[in-house]
């Protein structure tokens, strides 16, 4: 007499494949979403070199606006091309939600970008009272 075959498909046989599939899906999802959040750092910008650069403070809870200034003079904020007027509107919108002391602007300007592209942005920050401004740089040993 043949024993019933359903007995061996019980809790004793643990199939890992669906669990791994789910875990993989979750990892891909979170990785993809975090990549979208960091698109402001993903532009191909060749940063200038400075000795006095300081590491970012990972514990900082300030709202940061990152403006990428490309070598062509184009300014990108959160992946969108903006002009000085639009940049000031972005600042104003952030200032509606955050106090100026909790807001900082980071310029990631390409080495070959002209100051003419950055100056209107600095003026916009000054006009809006955003005084915490920094330039992203590379360390001298990263030439």
């Amino acid at each position, binding site marked *: 007499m043949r024993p019933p075959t359903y007995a*061996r498909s019980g809790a004793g046989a643990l199939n890992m494949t669906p669990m791994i599939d789910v875990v993989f899906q979750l990892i891909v999802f979170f*990785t993809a979403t975090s990549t979208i959040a960091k698109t402001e750092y993903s532009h191909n910008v060749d940063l*200038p070199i400075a000795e006095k650069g300081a590491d970012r403070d990972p514990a900082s809870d300030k709202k940061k606006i990152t403006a990428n200034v490309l070598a062509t003079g184009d300014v990108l904020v959160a992946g969108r091309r903006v002009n000085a007027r639009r940049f000031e509107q972005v600042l104003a919108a952030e200032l509606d939600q955050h106090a100026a002391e909790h807001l900082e602007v980071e310029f990631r300007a390409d080495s070959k970008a002209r100051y003419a592209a950055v100056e209107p942005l*600095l003026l916009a920050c000054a006009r809006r009272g955003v005084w915490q401004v920094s*330039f992203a740089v590379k*360390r001298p040993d990263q030439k």
Partner: protein
Amino acid sequence: MRAASSYASDAADIGSSMTPMIDVVFQLLIFFLCTASFQLPEQLLPTTLPPSGSATYTPSPQVQELELIRITLSQRGPALDIDLNGGTCGSVAELRDRLRQLLALAALPAVLDIGPEVEMNHVVTVYDTCLVAGLTDIHFAAPEK
């Protein structure tokens, strides 16, 4: 005695289920290795703009009477022209030395007057030189309306 063969079958099932797991682990390894290699470490060069919301910095008459370090940058082709209080600096190193000499006399504020044609690597280099020389009160000149 047929029960023993079922144990052997379970062992075979567990063994076969390891293959997709190893596949996935390799996929993850390759994925993270590829993505992690693109992010270079960056640092920040902090600056401070006028906190009052005004776009320009106007030194007080007292400061103007004493002295104000005015650094003017212009660029013709690849060459950077540096002007320090009306005198030409041949290089960034010379600028640094002269700034140190000035700061040995008094702690003075500085204004960077930068031409629109100047490349940002020069701007950052000069700003960085000011910090290295010991300047702490550095302002960017705004264009006159």
